[in-house]
């Protein structure tokens, strides 16, 4: 079975500072990878997904970007954080069977 790692687990950053969140996947190859954001008490918002190295699809226009430098590595970045970027960021990967996605433990980001 696959395992998804995310770091850091929690992060407090000032407005205007840069951001880099990392996600790595073990136990699978060439997975589809996903970044979601979840505001407190809300649903999941798909931000980006990638079907291969260097291939990024953006779902929501914003000041965030994503990159996939390696097959099992997915990075979420920002040059200047906004207060509205606060939330719980989840990385997910497709399984090798059907279409279910496996989620990482998440990163809780607070922008102050």
């Amino acid at each position, binding site marked *: 079975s696959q395992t998804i790692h995310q770091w850091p687990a929690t992060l407090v950053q000032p407005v205007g500072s840069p951001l880099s969140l990392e996600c790595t996947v073990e136990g699978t190859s060439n997975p589809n990878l996903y970044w979601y954001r979840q505001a407190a008490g*809300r649903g999941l918002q798909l931000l980006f997904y990638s079907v291969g190295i260097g291939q990024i699809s953006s779902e929501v226009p914003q000041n965030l970007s994503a990159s996939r430098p390696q097959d099992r590595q997915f990075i979420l970045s920002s040059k200047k954080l906004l207060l509205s970027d606060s939330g719980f960021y989840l990385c997910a990967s497709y399984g090798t069977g059907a279409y279910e996605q496996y989620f990482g433990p998440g990163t809780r980001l607070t922008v102050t």
Partner: protein
Amino acid sequence: GESVGLHLPTLSVQEGDNSIINCAYSNSASDYFIWYKQESGKGPQFIIDIRSNMDKRQGQRVTVLLNKTVKHLSLQIAATQPGDSAVYFCAETPVYNTDKLIFGTGTRLQVFP
């Protein structure tokens, strides 16, 4: 469709009772449906799935029912336990883009003794 901006509805049940969590999906062409459980501060966990060619599927203490006529999905939890307290999301895969899952609003299940 996606409803990420809405507050979560809450279902309160007594321990030992059965729970039924409902979800209305948007795309009649969706082929695959999943239920996820998300405990506080954690990522969602896969519970059970169902394909559009089925109307019922059972797991351990959970049953998913699919009514394609009214585009409705439900998750039934038998003998609800305190450990079942969480937020439950349904998700669908549209046939026009199987690379994505579209998540529902979510329902918070609270189990009281």
